[in-house]
């Protein structure tokens, strides 16, 4: 056996030695072919422990070392680094996990020692098959893509751009701003949302380092950390924004209308439109489904009035490709459709509103100029705000949407402010006011005379329906047909309440965007059980993803309020920045490799790689793995019917040897 292997059995204080007879294991290891020395040591991971290993490597010219200690997830790096410093290729280190896999989980010293021996035998046999590998480096393109122009994306783009990074900010709507642009006030400070957001929107729109692409969607992502190639579809808006001066005359003159998306359908907009007054860019697009010319070739009023000749009906979608070093996903959320809980009457009873509708109803720039009124124009004398519409609910979304309690308080405040006579009820399960100044805001609302009912609003009925349905005794006095009745049990009173109101506001759960699955796949970002994008670690890597170089920020990762969203936008920017400023990046050495002399071009591996790292060379009829894209999962290796793909460090021979070792005693 030409190999010289050193085996080190760690006591880990009593963590291992208390259950495993480490001397016996070391003696056993000495008897395995290839092992030239075998020692035990109190703490292998300590500096003297590492020094011991390094000295042996230098003095004895060890070909490989096996450290029998804790999990490789703990200290594999430590020992690899130590070996490297001593001149041994780091991949010639093998860890036998005799702590987490053995001493901590096994009852009985005899059994634990036996298991430790088997693990060491396997590690030694495996180490005999190890090959030296080199880590490789690639350059990083010093630019970033930010997907989604809500507050998270705007913040991330601004932070990156201010640091001198070239940023492409892609937004699918005609303007950046996202959900925050729809809000009137923000809790608990009651700042005007537009007042704090629009300066940031304008900054993003005019920043020399930001290339804004609104009305655009990412279509394809290829490449890898440091060098992502991204295809972006720039949807036809039929207005040449280079020529357009944003004078607005076209909008004024356009004779055709459609429901305004921004106003939640509570108002109309023109066929050529700006989604809202402070839109960035402040230049209109044409809605091809509403434009008479695009639909049936008649009209062209806008063309007539546009002095800049910016209207261009020949415009087509076009695809632009950019190369960036890193990506921040900030694609946000959507609100659940209230119709999914028919008992609450949304969509059926005109007096029932969704939260976003209520935001617009409140907004001075909204469809009613900020006057809170029902669809038939009455000022509500009583309003019920129902919490947890689809949140914390196994039938819809198990999670808490985190912001509803607070914006419900905000609504209550706005109602009391604008309609001091109005009765306001909040029907809640628990009040969750965990943020800075939030509990204080709750108390303030109690002081303002809002009624809090602990009990979930269970049913909402129209006044007329109610009268037709229940015994006369159950009809609240003076109930009018256009009113609503909320049925809820006040769990503190232990009594069912029938509450007549003029308006009901629901607080629909935050949901992943309808296309989150597709977007996740496109950017190779996993999703959690709730459907939101999954962070690499919930505590320690909250904006990283398992796709290196792709970060997530804001509500696409899970429900959160504006402060948290902004914080994540900045966090993602800083992670992206620290990546870019490294200028180059080390990439995985334990990749797959197609051995040309064995590949028959059968194409079995094609289509299996989740990272599209395998390509097929049609001319040579061979598959090839792009080292830079390969993450080393080994799926293709297992599938290759010729065993022509080699998994570096996890090759068949290495694993076979490990199996033989494990079963050798």
């Amino acid at each position, binding site marked *: 056996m030409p190999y010289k292997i050193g085996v080190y059995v760690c006591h880990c204080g009593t963590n291992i030695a208390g259950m495993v007879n480490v001397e016996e294991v070391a003696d056993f290891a000495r008897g395995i072919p290839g092992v030239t020395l075998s020692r035990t040591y109190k703490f292998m991971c300590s500096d003297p422990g590492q020094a011991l290993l390094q000295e042996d490597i230098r003095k004895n010219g060890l070909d490989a070392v096996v450290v029998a200690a804790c999990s490789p997830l703990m200290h594999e790096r430590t020992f690899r680094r130590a070996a490297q410093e001593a001149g041994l290729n780091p991949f010639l280190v093998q860890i036998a996990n005799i702590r987490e896999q053995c001493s901590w989980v096994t009852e009985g010293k005899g059994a634990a020692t036996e298991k430790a021996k088997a693990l060491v035998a396997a590690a030694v046999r495996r180490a005999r098959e190890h090959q030296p590998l080199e880590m490789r480096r690639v350059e990083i393109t010093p630019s970033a893509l930010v997907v989604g122009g809500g507050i998270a994306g705007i913040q991330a783009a601004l932070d990156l751009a201010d640091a001198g990074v070239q940023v492409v900010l892609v937004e699918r709507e005609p303007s950046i701003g996202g959900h925050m642009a729809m809000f009137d006030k923000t809790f608990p400070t009651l700042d005007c949302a537009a007042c704090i957001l629009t300066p940031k929107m304008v900054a993003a729109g005019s920043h020399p380092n930001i290339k804004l692409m609104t009305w655009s969607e990412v279509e394809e992502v290829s490449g890898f950390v440091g060098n992502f190639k991204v295809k972006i579809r720039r949807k036809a808006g039929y207005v040449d924004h280079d020529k357009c001066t944003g004078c607005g005359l076209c909008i004024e003159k356009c004779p055709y209308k459609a429901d305004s998306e921004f106003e939640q359908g509570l108002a109309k907009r023109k066929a050529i439109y700006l989604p809202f007054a402070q839109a960035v860019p402040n230049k209109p697009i044409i809605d091809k489904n509403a434009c008479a010319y695009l639909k049936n070739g008649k009209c062209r009023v806008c063309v007539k009035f546009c002095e800049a000749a910016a209207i261009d009906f020949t415009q087509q979608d076009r695809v632009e490709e950019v190369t960036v070093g890193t990506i921040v996903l900030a694609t946000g959320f959507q609100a659940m459709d209230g119709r999914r809980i*028919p*008992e609450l009457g949304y969509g059926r009873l005109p007096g029932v509103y969704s939260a976003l509708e209520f935001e617009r109803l409140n907004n001075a720039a909204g469809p009613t100029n900020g006057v809170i009124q029902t669809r038939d124009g009455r000022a509500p004398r009583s309003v019920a705000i129902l919490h*947890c519409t689809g949140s*914390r*609910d*196994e*039938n819809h979304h198990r999670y808490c949407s985190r912001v509803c309690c607070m914006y419900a308080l905000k609504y209550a405040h706005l109602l009391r402010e604008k309609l001091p006579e109005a009765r306001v009820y909040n029907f809640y*399960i628990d009040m969750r006011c965990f943020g800075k100044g939030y509990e204080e805001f709750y108390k303030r609302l109690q002081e303002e005379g809002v009624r809090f009912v*602990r*009990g*979930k*609003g*269970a*049913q909402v009925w129209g006044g007329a*329906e109610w009268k*037709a*349905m*229940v*015994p006369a*005794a*159950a009809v609240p006095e003076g109930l009018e047909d256009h009113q609503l009745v909320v*049925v*809820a*049990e*006040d*769990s503190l009173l*232990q*009594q*069912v309440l029938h509450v007549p109101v003029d308006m009901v506001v629901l607080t629909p759960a935050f949901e992943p965007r309808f296309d989150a699955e597709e977007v996740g796949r496109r950017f190779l970002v996993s999703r959690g059980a709730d459907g939101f994008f999954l962070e690499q670690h919930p505590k320690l890597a909250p904006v990283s993803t398992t796709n290196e170089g792709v970060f997530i920020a804001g509500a696409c990762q899970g429900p959160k309020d504006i402060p948290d969203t902004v914080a994540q936008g900045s966090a993602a920017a800083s992670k992206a920045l620290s990546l870019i400023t490294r200028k180059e990046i080390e990439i995985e050495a334990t990749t797959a490799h197609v051995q040309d002399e064995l590949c028959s071009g059968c194409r079995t591996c094609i289509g299996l790689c989740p990272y599209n790292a395998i390509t097929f060379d049609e001319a040579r009829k061979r598959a090839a793995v792009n080292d830079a894209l390969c993450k080393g999962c080994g799926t293709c290796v297992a599938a290759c019917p010729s065993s022509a793909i080699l998994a570096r460090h996890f090759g068949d021979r290495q694993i076979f040897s490990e199996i033989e070792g494990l079963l050798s005693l």
Partner: protein
Amino acid sequence: MPAATPFLEVADALKEYGAHDLDLCYQCSTCTGSCPWSFVEPLNIRRLIRLAQLGLPGYEGEDLWKCTTCASCQVRCPRGVAIVDLVRSTRAMIGETGLIPQSLRSALGSVKGEGNPWNGKREERNAWTESAGIPRFDPKKHEYLLSACCMPSYDKRSRRIADALWKVLQAGGVRAGVLGPEESCCGEAVRKIGDEGTFTSLGKSNAAAFEKAGVRKVIALSPHCYHTFKNEYAAFGVKVEVHHASEIMQRLIFEGKLKPHKKLDRTVTWHDPCYLGRHNDIFDAPRAVLSALPGVTFREMFRHKKQSLCCGGGGGRMWMETKRGERFSDLRLPEAMAVGASVLATGCPYCVNMFEDSRLGLEREDAIQVRDLAELVAETL
């Protein structure tokens, strides 16, 4: 209210009886607010659950017996708690101490002695089938066992439903037969009342009868029997394919084996029985049948499908007195009339029974008719 000390042994015992989800409840009140009683004389189911969680007195109170097990709360519960099981197990636990309301005891006694809750004689069970010319089940000749519930044997109104169903099955060429007096009540209500012991003996006896007769497929007339055979008889080793009558009728019409042709010229609305709809998600089959009947104008009530209002007859309420004005069935008839229906159709003998009762209390009894789906179908043949 005096101070109380939690008695968690009670909660633990309840879980042994089947209240597995007891601790999952987070007291949001959706159940109480969704309960049909919330319109009239509320049943505070949330409070009962809370008391049970802490084992405090009151969980076994009178309110417990108001529950019709209609599952209106259960389908809404945000924590997915099987509330009907909580009620059932609470009743089962206190049932062992004999605290079952007086009015239910005679029904239970009748089930124990005669195999039906209607104080009818066992030997009269299924006697009606002979006069109707329905053969005894023979696995060589028949594909299905027709399980017609106890009611047609002892209740004239229900007998009409059974006769109609038989006529429909005949017309559709379905090969079916019935069991004789060896059949017993399926035990659904008995179990909901809390008498697990009797339920088990009924289950075993029916399992033996099915086994002996070689039954593989069952058509249940009542959703209660349907529910029990389908979801609860596996415990007795019964592995049969169970269909509700409405599903069979839908299939016969779809396959063209049944051709409704006589025009009815009536406006019909459908009342979803709790055990067909909420408990077993059968909403579409009966509507499909109604839409296939010539001359039927179909109207949906406000509360339909998962939101349907219970008739008030489930969970043992059939045998308990409910005050006028508190009966859900009394509320349901005006609801049906409000949408212009002249026929309230349904698919459960309990519902028919409750509605017929309420109909007698109307100012004009003929303002609306109550029909089982099978009766309507039979009328078109």
